[in-house]
């Protein structure tokens, strides 16, 4: 759908929702609709990012196709969400990845391949496939600077694109008061971290089908907290290495490995659950374009956990080098697509929630 058609169509549907309001108990999107009368691009982007795609409104609506009003809010907001991701990203060549999944795939595959080639060429097969053990084993395979410099570059670039996108989105979604109080931030953070609005207004979200269930909220929480535990594990390992001067790998019962393993297991279960749900999910309330992006993100998260755990399991064998390189390749792909994939929803949905709680004050 061309952009102008998208916003005109979103406005048409949202005006009907606003005349109905039966869904106001389901989620914040409908309560935010009620404080507006017409829906411009900024409003549509705001509502699109406030939407958690729980689909309760689709099954509750008596005006879904084939009714002539043809209301399908999850689908149109999903479409608008992708459009907003694209517009708020940078540079435009990469930002097109949101609409053309092959660009994202190309970007991720390219960086992964670079990691593997660099490892093989620079490290050489003999060192790569030799057994390594004891402190500094990882760096015996790939030197510390070779790991850290590209990683930090990619992450810093991602952060820069996120900051730029965050500022743009905040200005585009603005309506009403701008100042954000501490309590508002805490409420928004609580809603985001607890997935408070992924419950279909109480009984659970209607996903993967029309029966309300808590499954998606649980899987999503597993992914989120698993990712956070892994992040904490990495940070802790950094502290061990640079402040306590203990080189990895760390013992199985050391805090970084315990956190990392727990995080990896949660991430793996959560990502697998979400992929399974997405596979089974009703396509009627869905925007097809979103699926490739969602799958890619989930698969990368799952692979990150999987290769990490394989690295742990085989770290005393000659396979260590292979799995370490694979793990780094997957992480590189995950991080290069941070600003060009589904990862961005963490940023924009959080900001939309802040905006929502600001409006509620």
């Amino acid at each position, binding site marked *: 759908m061309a952009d102008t058609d998208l916003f005109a169509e979103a406005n048409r549907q949202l*005006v*009907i929702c*606003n*005349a*109905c*309001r*039966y*869904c*106001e*108990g*389901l989620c914040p999107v409908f*309560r935010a609709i*009620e404080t507006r*009368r017409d829906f411009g691009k900024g409003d549509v982007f705001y509502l699109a990012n406030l939407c958690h795609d729980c689909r*309760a*409104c689709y*099954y*509750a*609506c*008596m*005006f*879904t196709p*084939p*009714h*002539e*009003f043809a209301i399908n809010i999850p689908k149109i907001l999903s479409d608008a969400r992708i459009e907003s991701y694209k517009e708020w990203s940078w540079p435009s060549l990469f930002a097109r990845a949101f609409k053309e999944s092959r660009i994202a795939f190309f970007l991720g595959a390219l960086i992964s391949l670079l990691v593997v080639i660099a490892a093989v060429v620079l490290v050489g097969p003999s060192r790569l496939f030799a057994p390594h053990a004891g402190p500094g084993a990882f760096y015996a395979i790939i030197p510390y600077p070779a790991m850290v410099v590209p990683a930090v570059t990619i992450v810093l670039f991602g952060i820069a694109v996120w900051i730029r996108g965050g500022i743009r989105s905040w200005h585009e979604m603005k309506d009403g008061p701008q100042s954000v109080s501490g309590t508002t931030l805490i409420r928004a953070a609580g809603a985001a971290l607890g997935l408070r609005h992924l419950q*279909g*207004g*109480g*009984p659970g979200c209607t996903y993967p089908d*029309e*029966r*309300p269930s808590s499954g998606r909220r649980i899987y999503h929480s597993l992914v989120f907290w698993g990712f956070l535990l892994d992040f904490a594990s990495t940070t802790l390992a950094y502290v061990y290495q640079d402040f306590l001067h203990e080189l990895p790998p760390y013992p199985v019962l050391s805090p970084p490995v315990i956190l990392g393993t727990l995080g990896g297991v949660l991430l793996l279960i959560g990502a697998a659950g979400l992929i399974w749900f997405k596979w089974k999910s009703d396509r009627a309330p869905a925007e097809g374009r979103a699926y490739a992006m969602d799958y890619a993100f989930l698969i990368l998260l799952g692979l990150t956990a999987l290769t990490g755990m394989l690295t742990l399991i085989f770290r005393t064998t000659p396979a260590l080098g292979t799995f370490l390189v694979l793990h780094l390749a997957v992480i590189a792909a995950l991080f290069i697509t941070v600003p060009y994939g589904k990862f961005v929803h963490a940023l924009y949905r959080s900001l939309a929630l802040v905006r929502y709680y600001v409006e509620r004050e």
Partner: protein
Amino acid sequence: MNLFDVIVVGGGNAALSAALAARHVAPRVLILERAPEYMRGGNSRHTRNIRCAHGSADEFFSAPYSEEEFLEDLIGVTGSPANLDLAKFVSRQSTKLPQWMSEHGVAWQQPLAGTLSLGRTNRFFLGGGKNLLNAYYRTAQKMGIEIRYSSFVEDLIIEDDSFEAVVLKTNGGRELIRANAVVIAAGGYEANIEWLKRYWGDSANNFIIRGTPYNDGSMLAALFEKGAKPVGDPKAFHAIAVDARAPKFDGGIVTRLDATPFGIVVNKLGRRFYDEGEAIWPKRYAIWGGLIAAQPDQLAYVIIDAKTVGRFLPPMFKPYQADSLECLASLIDVDRGTFVATLREFNCATSGKTEQRMEEPDGNGTRGINPPKSNWAIPIDKPPFYALPLRPGITFTYMGVEIDETGRVLKQGGRPFKNVYAAGEIMSGNILSRGYLAGFGMTIGSVFGELAGRMAATNGRH
């Protein structure tokens, strides 16, 4: 032996309440829903809340609402019920509904500060009536109730006052399905324009039917033909003002307009015809459908100006807009001269106050015009001016079959059929004679659905 203990004809709230209640008593219950699955649920699809009496405030009700007050409201707004005992029964039984409905899967909306805040008397379904139906259908399936969609019951076989079978229309033929008892919960005849024409003449061509196109009254006609006793005025219905641009059927809630108290309403002759500032909200809501039905071409316009255009619930259709009254008149189908004169006369009759406090009747009425506007009468003088076209939007008809205190359908002579029960719109005329109370249709459907289902299953076993 019959294949089923109870057959329920219909697929809305009353039908599902009946089927669920019957299933608690008897194992073999069949629902025959005429609509395809995506359209299941009759007019309940378009509902939002239910009126229930209750002794104390709770999570969902802001304050107590006694059975007596419920009954007073009912009598106050709708006149005297045809059967006072049944009216008392509804208000008494309504106290038990929230729990019963919750037990069968219905989720409720937490009270929010919204435009339609009826938090004291009505409970709101989370996500509206279709969500409620989805929950009931899921529960019915879990309980082992058989459900058939796109199943049109053409006729009933009744011998010696005893129901034998339903006649189901199938592809190119008919199928008889036997049962020990039947509950008819198939709605009124509101979607049958030809039937409405018997009482309204060609005016009915201009009616907009707010709900399902499937309620053509074929079951009601079948019951009358078998000798069931009619109850209720055939012209009586629940009808409100809807936007004239609404679809002929199934436009539901989004086409309703409640801008009336903010401005004035004129017919196509350009004349006002009723007090737009009447105080009682439920009455205001439910009276305009009938009023517009009596106007030429069943058409009217609510006229407002820049002062009030943003104050009511934003409508689905944009209003007609013009910078002068003359230009507005040419955009809409009214007599221009009379229209402008009506506005002048109205403006001169206002006190000059320009503030409307809608929370309560503000006593700011017109002087010296007929009909008056008894509250919220402020001049319509600030351009741009706006017009919203109105037509009668029929929700459901009241004339139906008379029932006894167990939900059984009565015959002309006053004796009941042995095992034929009715619930919902099709028997609403036992209580409703005119006017409407918000959320009361669902109360009738739930109370009499549960009663009919339970009694049909119990009776059918003996």
